[in-house]
């Protein structure tokens, strides 16, 4: 009997041990997939994606194609990163039937090639970082609104339904950062001015004040060039500090309006000189995030030639608040105000097409909801201007079928009481789009 008990115990314990081994094996097997792909620690990262998307207009185009977006794109992203040296090359190859000349403007990504990044960064000592080359730069606190971030944006992509990452365009710049015990200092020098990829009438139509209506390809904006190295360069500076979780920033900019905001003596659009100083604060508040940002736009060409049709100086202010209202649902809202300085002068200089009010206000509302283990994302982003009575609604639904396969459905809807208002002028561009992205 005793022997029987003992052997039973032994058997049981052996079984237990075996099953626990088996269990451990199962556990390790779970991660076998990772093991295969787990290479040795390497400073190289190679990745990218293939992306195809198509966006028909839902409004009647005046002059342009019936679709705002139709393209296939392959991104190749190479990085080499060690502690004090980083090299990056990110290029997009793309094809769109809307594009006729494959090398029309490589600098601005018009054609088959868009070089997103080609840069190197290096640590200098322990308190300096240098990043030089083609790069994408961002600072400031606004959500889809920019005051002190005067790095190039790509409004064409934003309005036509490309991935949101394409809202920022690259510039060829040198960024030097200093980290000391009081603050962080960033200096960005762009030796040759880089404008926004602004709405110029190709594909996306706009309101042309001379013609007095919404136009497209027949009246494309071709501003006079600003492409002199050194003499037409841009400087941007930021001082950043965090005090007890509160982020405080001071900004400065010296360069040009990023979109053509004046007419020269030949009656041609051009990029007038601009300087900006500003500040921002961002902090957690009431279990959300609160931010406020101000900038004074000093339109130097206007101040020096006060009788010419060049955009006036302005004050810009935004206040925002974001909060996760319930689990997986975040709401954020912003109030944005733009005030024209010396409004009477504006009315005189732009007589006949002075469509703006002295103060432009805009409200934004973003609602974001995640479902299905965050594989499904709904994002509704709305801009509404009470004084201009116009509206831009940007909505997207993204679904991750697998980790590396993503579908996107979206719409860009513009409407306004007047054709000449900020959003109203894009009403013929309203579109819906669908995209498919495969990451590798």
């Amino acid at each position: 009997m005793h022997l029987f008990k003992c052997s039973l115990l032994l058997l049981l314990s052996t079984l237990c041990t075996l099953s626990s081994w088996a269990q451990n094996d199962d556990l390790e097997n779970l991660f076998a997939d990772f093991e295969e792909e787990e290479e040795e620690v390497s400073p190289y990262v190679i990745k990218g994606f293939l992306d195809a998307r198509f966006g028909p207009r839902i409004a009647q185009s005046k002059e342009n194609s019936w679709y705002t977006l139709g393209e296939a794109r392959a991104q190749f992203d190479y990085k080499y990163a060690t502690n004090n040296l980083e090299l990056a090359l990110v290029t997009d190859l793309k094809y769109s039937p809307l594009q006729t000349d494959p090398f029309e403007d490589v600098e601005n990504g018009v054609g088959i090639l868009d070089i997103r990044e080609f840069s190197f960064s290096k640590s200098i000592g322990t308190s300096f970082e240098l990043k030089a080359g083609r790069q994408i730069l961002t600072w400031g606190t606004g959500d889809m609104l920019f005051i002190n971030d005067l790095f190039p944006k790509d409004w064409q992509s934003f309005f036509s339904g490309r991935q949101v990452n394409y809202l920022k365009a690259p510039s060829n710049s040198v960024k030097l950062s200093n980290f000391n015990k009081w603050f962080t200092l960033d200096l960005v020098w762009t030796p040759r001015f880089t404008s926004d990829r602004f709405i110029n009438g190709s594909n996306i139509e706009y309101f042309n004040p001379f013609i007095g209506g919404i136009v497209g390809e027949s009246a494309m904006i071709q501003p006079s060039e600003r492409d002199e190295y050194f003499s037409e360069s841009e400087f941007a500076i930021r001082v950043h500090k965090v005090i007890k979780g509160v982020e405080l920033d001071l900004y400065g900019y010296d360069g040009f309006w990023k979109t053509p905001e004046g007419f020269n003596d030949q009656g041609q659009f051009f990029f007038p000189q601009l300087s900006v100083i500003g500040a921002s604060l961002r902090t957690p508040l009431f279990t959300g995030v609160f931010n406020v940002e101000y900038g004074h736009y000093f339109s130097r060409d206007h101040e020096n030639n006060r009788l010419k049709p060049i955009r006036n100086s302005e004050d810009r202010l935004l206040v925002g608040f974001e909060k996760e209202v319930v689990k997986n649902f975040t709401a954020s809202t912003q109030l944005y105000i733009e005030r024209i300085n010396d409004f009477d002068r504006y009315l005189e200089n732009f007589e006949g097409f002075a469509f703006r009010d002295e103060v432009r206000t805009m409200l934004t509302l973003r609602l974001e909801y995640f479902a299905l283990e965050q594989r499904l994302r709904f994002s509704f982003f709305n801009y509404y201007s009470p004084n201009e009575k116009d509206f831009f609604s940007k909505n997207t639904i993204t679904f991750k079928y697998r980790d590396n396969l993503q579908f996107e459905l979206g719409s860009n809807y513009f409407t306004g009481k007047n054709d000449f208002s900020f959003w109203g002028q894009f009403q013929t561009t309203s579109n819906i789009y669908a995209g498919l992205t495969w990451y590798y």
Partner: protein
Amino acid sequence: MRKRLIIVHTLWLFLLLSMTGYAQSVDQIIKKANHVAYYNGKDGRAKVQMLIKDSQGRSRKRSFTILRKNINTNADGEQKFYVYFNRPTDMQGTVFLVWKKMEGDDDRWMYFPALDLVKRIAGGDKRTSFVGSTFLYEDVSGRRLSADKHKLLKTTGDAYVVESVPVDKSGVKFSKYIAHVDKKSFIPLKIEYYNSKGKVYRIYENKKWEMVQGKPTVIISSMKDLDTGVETYNRYTDVEYDVNIDDSIFSERYLRKAPMELINY
């Protein structure tokens, strides 16, 4: 009469003492368990492989490196976390930064490399899914001990069984959770979360643990959501403690440019 009063009072005092003694020991258990789960060493780092399996057997993978630093080395309090993502591909280079606080909301940031964007994340709801897994932000960075009332339910052969009931029931889905804490190492072995109907809906399991640099360390853990059938497995590799991670790593500077020697090791 007087004698009886003294006896009653003595008994009462004895009862009080024994109660506080009991309470102290449960506090010690959860304090030690919390230390082992989140505060080992003065700092630490690990590579994490995450596997999210849904009820239909489909799986998604995440991999990331976590750097952690205890701010106050004497007491288990404020901490900073830096999480650098390698997988999935579209998240490669994304960084999540947390300054965990003992009072008020945590400070949280995300860095999106394609936009060079440093986004501030509302620190409010820590009970949101961490990167789409069944682990919540709170599971990753820890829950304040003072957020729950703890009670030692029983002691089994190798574990303390502790029941924790949230002080503030709003904002949490569970009505209580019951943790099994290893008696010797104080490492949490299993945690069951109960919904308001008193049913278990979420189970954490410590599937494998080892001593690393003399500290009890989870190697494989899982979190199963019984409502959805989704289960997440985490495997921690290359766990290291006392790496001497500088405080400055947990700042905007290293969001924009990751400290590769700390991440790729």
